[in-house]
């Protein structure tokens, strides 16, 4: 999930080109971010295993919050979310309030998504964990395809393709798959947003419209800072994203759906001045795809290669190297 902020006004091309930032984190910082991301995924996995038909979204998100707190999480970038059934595809969402956990009960065969963003010592994770209760062939199909989005995004980021163009290529892949883009339902239509170490002093654990007070403070500052260079900390398809990936950490969350079944993952992408890689490859969805690829070799070949764009395997190879 991302912040409900508006994209900045247009800026001149001249000012845009001045922007060069050094990568702001050292190896120690990256280790902390990675540790927290793993912790968040571990909590989500535990809650996923505990889920069963009859549980409501509110119960699931509350449980996720408790798991995270028990694991030492001090604050949230945004409150934990849980979506069940067609709400995983954000069907019939008209207001942002509909993102909040509802009384919807999980049923056999339903997909679900858990999304949380814990903060420890200012280090932040923002993850999305998709699952299903019982069998769902549609879910399995989308899950197998989701891997291509992960490979595509990192390959394009390494090429320093402007963010709005990467967004468009993700859209093209979605169209080829026959799915629809659900990240565009998020405020600002964003597929991702920048993550920094929060340094704000507001009260921890207090949230406004689902976002921690400290988050809002930090985001506000980030936003103004980036705007000076004509860049946005939000990654969408508009003009504000017409620039190469800014060095730093990006929480990226491609979210696709077919009919009433929605899937996403969300994890941190590391962008340096001349490279890009996923912060971690030891994550539930990556392991799941790996297992599937090991058992059925046809998955090693993507069903629909986008010519000249996706080279599966290469991208994850890069990420492994970077670890």
């Amino acid at each position, binding site marked *: 999930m991302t912040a409900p902020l508006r994209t900045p006004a247009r800026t001149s091309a001249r000012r845009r080109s001045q922007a060069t930032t050094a990568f702001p984190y050292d190896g120690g910082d990256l280790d902390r971010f990675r540790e927290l991301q793993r912790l968040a995924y571990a909590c989500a996995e535990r809650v996923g295993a505990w889920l069963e038909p009859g549980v409501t979204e509110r119960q699931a998100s509350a449980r996720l919050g408790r798991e995270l707190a028990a694991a030492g999480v001090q604050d949230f970038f945004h409150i934990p979310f849980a979506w069940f059934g067609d709400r995983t595809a954000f069907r019939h969402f008209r207001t942002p309030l509909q993102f909040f956990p509802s009384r919807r009960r999980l049923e056999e065969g339903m997909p679900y998504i858990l999304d949380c963003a814990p903060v420890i010592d200012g280090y932040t994770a923002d993850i999305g964990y998709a699952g299903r209760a019982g069998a769902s*062939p*549609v879910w399995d*199909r989308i899950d197998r395809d989701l891997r291509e989005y992960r490979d595509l995004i990192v390959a394009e980021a390494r090429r320093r393709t402007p963010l709005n163009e990467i967004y468009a290529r993700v859209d093209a892949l979605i*169209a*080829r*798959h*026959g799915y*629809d883009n659900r990240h565009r339902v998020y405020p600002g239509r964003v597929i991702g947003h920048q993550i920094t170490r929060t340094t704000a002093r507001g009260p921890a654990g207090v949230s406004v419209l689902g976002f921690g007070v400290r988050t809002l403070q930090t985001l506000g500052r980030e936003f103004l800072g980036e705007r000076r260079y004509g860049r946005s900390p939000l990654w969408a398809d508009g003009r504000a994203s017409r620039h190469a990936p800014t060095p730093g950490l990006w929480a990226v969350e491609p979210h696709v759906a*077919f*009919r009433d079944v929605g899937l996403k993952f969300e994890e941190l992408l590391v962008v340096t001045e001349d490279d890009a890689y996923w912060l971690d490859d030891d994550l539930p969805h990556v392991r799941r795809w790996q297992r599937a690829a090991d058992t059925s070799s046809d998955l090693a070949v993507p*069903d*629909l290669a986008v010519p000249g764009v996706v080279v599966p395997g290469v991208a994850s190879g890069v990420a492994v190297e970077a670890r």
Partner: protein
Amino acid sequence: MRRRAVVSAGVPLAMYEQGNPAGPTVLLVHGYPDTHGVWDDVAAALAADGHHVVRYDVRGAGASGAPRGVSSYRLSHLADDLFAVADAVSPYRAVHLAAHDWGSIQAWEAVTDPRAAGRIASYTSLSGPCLDHAGHWARRRLARPTPHHLGQLLTQATRSWYIGLFHLPLLAPAGWRLGLAARWGSVLARAEGVTPRAGHPRPTLAADAVRGIALYRANMLRHLLRPRQRPTAVPVQLITLTRDRYVSPALGDDLDRWAPRLWRRTLTAGHWSALLEKGPTVAQMIGEIAAHADGAPAAPALERAAASSREQAASQRQRLRLGPRLGPRLGRGLERAAFAGKLAVVTGGGSGIGRATALAFAEHGAAVVVCDLDLATAERTVELARLLGAPEAHAYRVDVADSAAVDTFAREVAVAHGVPDIVVNNAGVGHGGTFLRTTEKEWRHILEVNLGGVVHGCRAFATLMVERGEGGHLVNVASAAAYLPSKVLAAYATSKAAVYMLSDCLRAELAPAGIGVSTICPGLVNTNIARTSTFSGRSADGLDATRDRFAALYARRNFPPEKVAWQILRAVRENRAVVPVTVEARAGRLLSRLSPALTRAAARIDID
């Protein structure tokens, strides 16, 4: 043809045999006021196909004996006659039965009799329900008088006016004697579209018709008012005639309760034209169920008929339980199984409107065949269609601009999956450019794909549909550009206007064959088309920029192809002629009628 007499409980029945005596026996039973002669065409086709075909004149008709007294015409006697004939012609092997009108009512009596096991291998019923089933059907509807149910009852009642007349003394017999019989041929010709032929109706008509009134008087009220439980294990093929003036299709709604092994098929024909004009088609259907009942794998069309029957039964059960409003419905009020048992072909089904349409048909129970220039994308559509529950889905690589390729495609589809019920000619390409800039090559390409593709698709598939004789539906995807001129769409708009006109002409031509034609004018729909359109007189860079601009425009409009797909399904369901989809397409159509001068003025606007 060999003729002999079989005596059943003292009544001599005239029986006629033809075809291969060693082949599977098919027994054909005629209705009122006919004789075995009404089956001539069907019998000839079945005999040519290697069957042993047996017909007889029922008691009171043609050359058979006519016992006195209304009670001699009770269903139990008529069923005994049927078994007597079956025993005489095929004592050791069960026979395949097909019956029409009153013949079908009598045959139901036999099929739901315990003796049917081992004697009747399959039963094809046309236009004649089991009277007991009909009694239960009416009771269930009276017990649950929803508007839908009352409507069904009323519809059937209005088609049964003559039954009331037949119960009045004197009137009906006098009608037949005083001229109706003499004019029966022209009544059939006018009301039913039956071509007059020599020897039909028979000279015995007036006498048969008068005696046959006993059929109604002996049976109708008895069974309708006090219906018995009459289930059967015999495989039943129910052929519903879409233009039947006497039997409403809804009568068959509950049939799966009584005949669990049920295949439902539809024939675009009237009560008599089915046998007199579409004999070969009816023969083929009888042959298919007979072969399947004898152990052969089901022909594709028959396979789908079974699916259609299952789905209809499920939604019927649901409706009886929940009332019509709460049944399982999807997108804009279509029932989930609205197209169960149908085969839909979609060209250009690998992307955009074509893919969405194929998926919508799949979601509503149809089997789908998708073709595209790009096989991988068509295969993807097929995979998604299967995930949505399509009973069958197949992908083909076809260039619709190539008429020979389209013909081959149509033949392959017919052989492998059966003649389609619906064909959506959707494949098309976009093109922008003023007339003087558009090259001859560009013109040819646009016309070959957008117009040629539709022409070839219509020709190849409509030919098959007409031959099959069960009707069907063609959908041609045109565009709002068909009626909104623009100087920068010279070639594209011309091609789409041609598709529009072609569809209007074709609709008139195919209506008698029960084939509907719909023209769809989408408007601005968010698909790949902006990215793949060509533009005259652009450098490569300029082309990219133009495409980006158009893609952005389409994306901002953001009208999903799924909504066009729903309109296509609706157009087929309701047989709508022209469907403009988006607001701009509808407003444009209105404007083009109210003020053509304004649309001509707007044609001067530079779009890019």
